[in-house]
């Protein structure tokens, strides 16, 4: 009987963790949600060839699939626009970087449209160019993995859109 209790307690532990996780996330507001590459689990779901856990120092990822599942099923945390933006960035990363360096191009237009910020395309391009000048000048960029570069890009997009177009920033 004692053994059964211990077994039941062990089985219940992950559920307790999930409940706690959900509660914490529910307190978050839009715009301050998790990074989709690491916390929504879409990186691993969409691009299984990339070793996300190894590529990123990601505590939440290390918690296991419950955290990923709960983040995915939480629309206000990992909403559709966030996932689409993350997917767009990692799928088109080299050309997006080229467009940012050039200051224009169809990939910046695509990014802006994906975020629903088509009207602010030029301002986003300009903001990203400024932000990326510092990113590329940093020595770490040359040795960064694709996952790390995508994360850097995502964070830059988030910061720039917050300054340029508030309506876009809320969604990210």
């Amino acid at each position: 009987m004692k053994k059964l209790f211990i077994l039941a307690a062990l089985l219940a532990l992950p559920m307790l963790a999930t409940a706690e996780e959900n509660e914490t996330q529910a307190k978050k507001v839009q715009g301050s949600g998790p990074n989709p590459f690491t916390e929504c689990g879409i990186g691993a779901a969409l691009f299984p060839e990339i070793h996300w856990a190894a590529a990123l120092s990601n505590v939440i990822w290390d918690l296991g699939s419950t955290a990923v599942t709960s983040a995915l099923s939480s629309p206000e945390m990992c909403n559709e626009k966030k996932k689409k933006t993350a997917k767009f960035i990692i799928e088109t990363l080299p050309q997006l970087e080229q467009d940012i360096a050039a200051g224009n191009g169809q990939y910046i237009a695509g990014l802006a449209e994906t975020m629903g910020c088509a009207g602010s395309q030029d301002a986003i391009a300009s903001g990203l160019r400024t932000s990326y000048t510092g990113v590329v000048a940093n020595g770490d960029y040359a040795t960064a993995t694709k996952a790390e570069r995508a994360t850097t890009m995502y964070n830059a997009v988030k910061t720039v859109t917050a300054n340029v177009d508030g309506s876009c920033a809320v969604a990210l």
Partner: protein
Amino acid sequence: MVTTMKTMKKQLVRGLLFLVCVCTIHTAYAKTKYDIPPLTEDLRKQWLTLNHYKHTWRGNYQNEINNEDYFLAVTGQIDPYEEYLAFVNVLQRYRTDKNKEDAATICRFPARTTLLIPHLKWFKKKHRPKCKEFNKLNNLKKIKSISLLFASGYFDSPSSYFGHALLKFNYTDDVLNQKALDASLNYGADVTDSEGSPFYILNGLTGGYQANYKRNNNFIHSHHYTNTQIRDLWEYKLSLTPAQIRYIVEHSWELRNAQFSYYFLNDNCAHRIIKLVEMATGKNLSKTHGFWLLPVQLTQHLQQQGLIGEETYIPSLKTTFTEKYRQLSKEEQKQFIRFFDETPQIQEAYAQTLSAKLLFLILNQLDLQVAKLTISKKDEEALNNLNRQRAVILGAMLKRPAAQLERPSFKKKEGTTLLNNKPSSVIQAGTIHRKKTTGALLRYQIANNDLLTQRLPGQEISRFIMGAAEVEVQKGNISPHKVTLIDIANINTNPLPSRLTKEYSWSINIDYTARNLTCTKCKTFGIESKLGKAARLNDSLAVYGLTGGRLHHKRTDHHRYVSLEAETGGVWDINTTTKLKAGVDISVDPIKGNPEYLTHGTLALDITKNKDIRLHIENNGHTTAATALLGLYFN
């Protein structure tokens, strides 16, 4: 015999029971105001087509859709009438009490609903439930046209030389954020084995993989083809009526939940994609004389049926890069190559001195190399080196004002179109002359692409034959002259030094053939493979050299089981309809050391889109042989 009689009896009893059942249900509902319309001949045909039923020789039905849960009736997969009744029943219930479950079912089957509305007195357009998800993801009213996209083969991957086909929904200009829409419809297999493994080939040929339709973001999907997989894309805007567009959009929505068996040769992406257009237009577009259907055949069928409105070429990263690189001056090309030859310490300073045009081109070249590494092998060290160089170029670009960074332009070559390409198979008939005797030669070949056929813009000189048979008739005797199982050659004329690209020319073939035309008793079954280099001397002339070997199934007077093979030659595009290939082949037994030199030349003259003449002559130092063949191309 007794078993057959029993089976027939059983089927008769089942048929009678079915009729009784249908009549009972029909009578029951007929008494209500929501009667079940009879399945007239016309409606029955449309219902069978829409739901992928196939009549079997035993008189019953089977379905191309594998998953039972696609259907509403328990026996709906094989019983079209039960499925019909089940669906009408849902419409009746929804009309009566408008419950959410029935609304969801109706929204799962918009094409069925559209088909039945004209036949129902009690269920009209205004009675359709509001299908939020369908409306949100399709925005049907704003789809102005549908395009067929054709993707050429993967970069350097023979197994994909078939190409790929998909559909794209084109929205009216007032629809915002079009790059964010899931506008393309793809059909593909859920492959669980690694490409090239025996299981992959076996399952691909025998229907071992499940396949389904998926909607994708067209912007990302197209980018994936052109920039990651390095494949050229062709877009054909189809001439469809609004009703036909509606049919395709609605039915493809229904098929999201359908699973099919994937057969690489004939029930593939080409078949399933064109099937949708075929169902919508009622035109036979998937016809083929063989047991295969190539994606490139689709464009020809669509053209024949007058369904192609507009053709757009979307070049791959490699095509645009090569074209732009060729437009550089000699000095600029030297500067370009120098960047890659410099040490990492010097590269950064050197990049600052380069023009914007060169910075863009170097970045493109690095992206091409990254894409190649992603497709083929994972070489972390090489990838890191490429990323380091990318950072150098991006850094140099970001230090300059954006206004000073003008991209190099890409000029599409005029006059070349996929629609002028010959159909996919050919029968050639003519004469063969050797040693003072003349005979007849008859040849049949699947997939007509060889070194002398019309190429797509940007396409390298290549050969892709997936089966050919040749017979010779001499003095009333018919003898097999050559049988080819597969024959692929890629003459790579990349203008960059191979130390930068690691690209080579190569060929591989499996066939039963003689060494040359002059030798009649030296036929062997064998596998041959060669590797080498090629160069383009100008727009119309390319030269190549390949060396390798052949494993033979038996000895001949010239060689034992292995022979070393080499060939060198050139291909000259004399004009748009005439091409000449000439060269020297060498065959030697490595132990005997007895090289045989064969000098040869072939002239190809296109008479029409479907006919050509091939004149061939060769000499092995002792004897001359020649053939003259008239080719008739067809699908």
